[in-house]
């Protein structure tokens, strides 16, 4: 019904199915309750209050929650909506509107070599995401090379190597402790020359956004990329753990400022976490979610679809 509302096609793509499956647990839990909430007959103050509570419990954050509820309330009043079902639809629409990206993803554009950085705090799932991305684009006929830019964490290079093997793509790596910018330089060279690749996916070491020196290192990597490839990096994806709370906004802000983050990969969405923080990120920083990680398998990565996401979150 909602899909029709937004004029989307009726059949679900594979990605959508995957996303919805992974959100099933979430749906039956907390956000499912929002659905039940709107099955009450009258739109009362308690309804709004409880709605507020549920959004906060989904890590949506105080500010965004208030705004969402307010907007919904306003529209309900203005449009003279009486039934809770319709009010529910309004809320869904508002949430989807908040999540809709304003720009297309730059990875799919035709280009001799597309460079994509994957950045994020420690333990968010960068290396795993990289493996999944490599597999995804390899399946789509791209010639992918991985760059082992995390030279700091113990065994990070080995971990990426295993993913490269699984995905069946090339990897450019040096020894642990080497300069990531130098690794990147080599990787770009190799992609352009010997490997004839058209997509270079760059791993980076996890860093807390408050670590000045490490953030500078990212800037340096960006400069190195820009010097060798026109307009590179073409996408900088911030990997965000779905269980992250309000700190997610600070993370996105800091990584946007130094690394120029252009999109978000929301990982570990197969648990009960909701990743509600992405609503605030999109609202405050205008950085859209591009992919969601839905499991530990190499195929468990889906393109982000705001409609499916919100539908999954709130339940049909």
């Amino acid at each position, binding site marked *: 019904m909602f899909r029709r509302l937004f004029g989307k096609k009726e059949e679900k793509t594979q990605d959508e199915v995957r996303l919805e499956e992974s959100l099933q*647990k979430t749906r039956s839990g907390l956000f499912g309750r929002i659905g039940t909430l709107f099955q009450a007959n009258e739109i009362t103050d308690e309804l709004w209050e409880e709605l507020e*509570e549920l959004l*906060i*419990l*989904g*890590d949506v*954050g*105080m500010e965004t929650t208030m705004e969402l509820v307010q907007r919904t309330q306003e529209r309900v009043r203005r449009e003279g909506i009486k039934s809770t079902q319709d009010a529910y639809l309004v809320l869904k629409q508002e949430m989807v509107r908040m999540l809709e990206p304003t720009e297309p993803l730059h990875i799919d554009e035709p280009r001799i070599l597309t460079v994509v950085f994957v950045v994020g*705090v*420690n*333990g*968010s*799932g960068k290396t795993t995401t990289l493996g999944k991305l490599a597999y995804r684009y390899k399946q789509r006929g791209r010639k992918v090379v991985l760059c082992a830019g995390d030279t*700091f*964490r*113990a*065994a*990070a290079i*080995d*971990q990426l*190597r*295993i*993913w490269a093997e699984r995905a069946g793509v090339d990897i450019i790596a040096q020894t*642990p402790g080497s300069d990531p910018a130098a690794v990147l330089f080599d990787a770009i060279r190799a992609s352009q020359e010997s490997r004839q690749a058209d997509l270079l996916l760059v791993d980076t070491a996890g860093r*807390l*956004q*408050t*670590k*000045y*020196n490490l953030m500078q290192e990212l800037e340096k990597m960006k400069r190195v990329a820009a010097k060798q490839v026109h307009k590179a990096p073409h996408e900088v994806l911030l990997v965000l*753990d779905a*269980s*992250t*709370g*309000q*700190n*997610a*906004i*600070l*993370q996105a802000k*800091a990584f946007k400022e130094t690394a120029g983050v252009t999109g978000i990969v929301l990982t*570990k969405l*197969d*648990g*009960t*976490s*909701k990743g*509600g*923080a992405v609503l605030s990120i999109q609202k405050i920083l205008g950085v859209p979610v591009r992919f969601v990680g839905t499991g*530990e398998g190499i195929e468990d990565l889906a393109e982000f679809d705001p409609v499916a996401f919100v539908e999954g979150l709130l339940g049909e």
Partner: protein
Amino acid sequence: MFESLSDKLQAVFDKLATKGKLTEADVNAALREVRLALLEADVNYKVVKDFVARVKERAIGVEVMESLTPAQQVIKIVHEELIELLGKPAPLDLSGPPPNVIMLVGLQGSGKTTTAAKLALHLRKNGQRPLLVAADIYRPAAVKQLQILGEQIDIPVYSEGTEVPASTIAKNALRHAREKAYTVVILDTAGRLQIDEQMMQELEQVRMVTQPRDVLLVVDAMTGQEAVRVAQGFHERVPITGLIMTKIDGDARGGAALSIRQVTGVPIKFLGTSEKLNGLEPFQPDRLANRILGMGDVLTLIERAQEAITEEEARAMEEKLAYGDFDFEDFLQQLKQIKKLGPITDLLGMIPGMNKMAKAVDPQMAEKNLKQVEAIINSMTRQERRNPALLNASRRRRIARGSGTTVQDVNALVKQFREMRKLMKQLGLTGSKKKGRHRGRRGPNLGGLMDLFGG
């Protein structure tokens, strides 16, 4: 985004102008801010509700102490309750016959492997003989990671690759530990979701065969509302005995610790404070309470300032300021005083409301700036310092060479110094007129220097 709670509360009470006892209206107004602060810190919604109710009950009717404003009185109560809720630091349980087993559990990416190595190092420092066990057979290269970390700190790692079930590895490791007389066995398990039935069963098995004294849940400080469910999920299957919160060196406020503590009742044992392997600190309730409230550490700062700057120094400085004969020598002295207070990053972080600025200011640059300024002044002759008017082009060139800077740097400093002196003269004069209300005589000096950090 995160304004300091004390600032917000002050604003609330400025409007209320309460005297004597805290009325219900006061408390309600204040607690609205407290509630927001806690939610922003990712404390679970329900925990916040209970907490606020408790504080309210305690606070209404409380006599406002003479030395405190109502805002401070409420914060005091909130703070006390928070510390109470966070509980006392608890040591590891090593009371059984060796080897004592410590099992680390948690979600993917919470930091179990790094924490395992940190714990091992910590225990060895306390006279134990730890053995690390790589029981994460799923994540690619997890075993290798633990081996590398073990090598770095020279602590043996027991592993059997990734083909053997985790419970078998754990059992064999325990036997190995007994034979080789290790006193503590630290089990690094695979990250898992608390709803993953198969993985939770594995955890139960490992727990059964090893009978750990301690099962520690490793939680990322950035975890949001979900923390409660994660903790409950693990606690139901493998009763946890303690909590380790990691990545506390970021700017996450760590409200999850409070939520987990509240729903499971287990103590918080350690905080992971850096990527380095010595970055593990025993938990301190008061500091975490401050952090959750976003209050900074003003007390420490005041203490340090008092230690570093004597009353006399401060008074002498104020006089100079008032008469406008502040020169480069005084400037240098001020710089040294500030440096005595500690690294600028720490300093700014401790001031409420400055947390945000601390980030904007770019600490490394600020430290570097300070160093450069010091070098330039040190390259001046005593005469030049006392009488900056002497600084002509030739002298400036010499100073630039001497301090390893450029003439532009020297020019910038001289210009900045002049402006600062002008500003201070004004501040100094107004300051002495209203001496009674003047809040700290160091105020303007420090303020002037703060400009430099921005540059």
